[in-house]
């Protein structure tokens, strides 16, 4: 999908204005809530969403022959059959018999790069998160794949025993406190209508609308980071705020948390890439 990019500068200017309003406003909570809502509306205009650039880059990468085997990823099986992309993301993470593991999108991509392309994934992993002047294949490919499930509903896969285990462990991890601040996910995401400073915190401890809206909007273009981000980055950032050690990219706890969150979000209608602060 190609979309015009309306100057990021315009967007940045709009944000500065919004931020100015936020600090200039008088105390009552309702007022600041209203301001935040206005600012969110500004961010949800799809025609100014640079996330679609990542989708386009991902589409090119998907078809490009690479690695020792000079193969593309087009035969990669994301769960719906080799090369079948439509709706695959809506059912990820899921169990893959060939790997005998539950994998999320990025873990599966790394698997396909290794087995199908013979690609050295060290470099791909070094660029797991994009930065200024450094694109991330994994972010771009995930954006492309996820976009092929836009308009579809989140369908958590919970039939294989390993999928069931993942959901259960993910739930335990959600409530596991630790680090110098004694934080768990639940410290910040288990009550309605709470916020940290001015940032609203979704309550992800209950299944339903909030979890659906949250999970259905990832991957997302983060304006504050000028980058498309996936759930791998969101959880990395939340563990940072939780004062926990760096979580290993594409590791089991992150996938377990994702399975649990997808379970909370079952039925949510995917609309990605979205755009957020």
């Amino acid at each position, binding site marked *: 999908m190609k979309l015009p990019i309306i100057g990021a500068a315009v967007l940045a200017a709009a944000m500065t204005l919004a931020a100015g309003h936020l600090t200039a406003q008088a105390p009552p909570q309702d007022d600041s809530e209203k301001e935040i809502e206005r600012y969110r509306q500004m961010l949800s205009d799809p025609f100014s969403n640079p996330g679609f650039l990542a989708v386009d880059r991902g589409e090119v990468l998907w078809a490009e022959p690479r690695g020792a085997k000079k193969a593309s990823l087009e035969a990669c099986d994301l769960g719906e059959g080799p090369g079948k992309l439509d709706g695959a993301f809506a059912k990820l993470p899921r169990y893959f018999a060939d790997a005998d593991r539950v994998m999320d999108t990025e873990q599966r991509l790394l698997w396909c790069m290794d087995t199908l392309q013979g690609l050295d994934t060290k470099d791909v992993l070094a660029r797991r998160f994009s930065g200024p002047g450094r694109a991330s294949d994994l972010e771009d490919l995930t954006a492309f794949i996820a976009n092929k499930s836009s308009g579809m509903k989140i369908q958590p896969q919970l039939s294989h025993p390993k999928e069931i285990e993942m959901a*259960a462990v993910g739930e335990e991890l959600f409530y*596991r406190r630790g680090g110098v*601040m004694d934080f768990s996910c639940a410290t910040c995401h288990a009550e309605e209508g709470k*916020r*940290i400073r001015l940032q609203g*915190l979704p309550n992800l401890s209950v299944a339903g609308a909030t979890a659906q809206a949250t999970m259905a909007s990832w991957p997302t273009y983060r304006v504050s980071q000028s980058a498309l981000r996936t759930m791998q980055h969101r959880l990395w950032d939340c563990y940072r705020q939780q004062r926990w050690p*760096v979580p290993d990219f594409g590791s089991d706890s992150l996938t377990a948390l994702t399975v649990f969150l997808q379970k909370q979000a079952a039925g949510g209608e995917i609309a990605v890439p979205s755009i957020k602060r």
Partner: protein
Amino acid sequence: MTKTAFLTAACAALLIAGPALAQQKPSQATIEAYVKSTFGKASPEWQARITPDESLAVCNTTRNAVSSVQSEAIIKREMAKVTYPADGKLLGDWKKGYTVANNGRGGQFSDPPGTVAGGNCFACHQLDPKEVSYGTLGPSLSAYGKDRKYDAEAIKDAYTKIYNSMAVVPCSNMPRFGTNKVLDEQQIKDVMAYLFDPESPVNK
């Protein structure tokens, strides 16, 4: 279906449901294996930070909903970890206290070594009523000292609370700033003054 046949069927169903239910609550060993696979490369110091102590382990297994027996045990254990200043002074400089309350840095893997940690009180509490950027995970502390008439008892209770929140409320969501060595004694005295000095914006 006869009564016995029905009962047999019901028992069989229970037997089948048994293992399925057991699977819903994974064993501690399984959970630890997941944690290890994700955080196992961290340094021993960082590993130690995410190994729950006795009190936190209880908070984790009960999801903070402790029984009264557990609650008493936690309060006793955490109270023993509180150290009051040797000079007996609980209040420092409110201006420095504002900096402590406003600083959200420290303890994150992205922090450069030597980063001075803050208390990040604004993340969860309203303090100075003129500051709009405050969080709501904790109660408003505006006019905290004034409302308590700067009472000595209230001052000591607040010191205890900030030093070790669980010595007051078991499994409190508030960090144990002193016990977990996030803030040092002087920082806690300063933030205390931010709450209790009549000149502090908190009480204006």
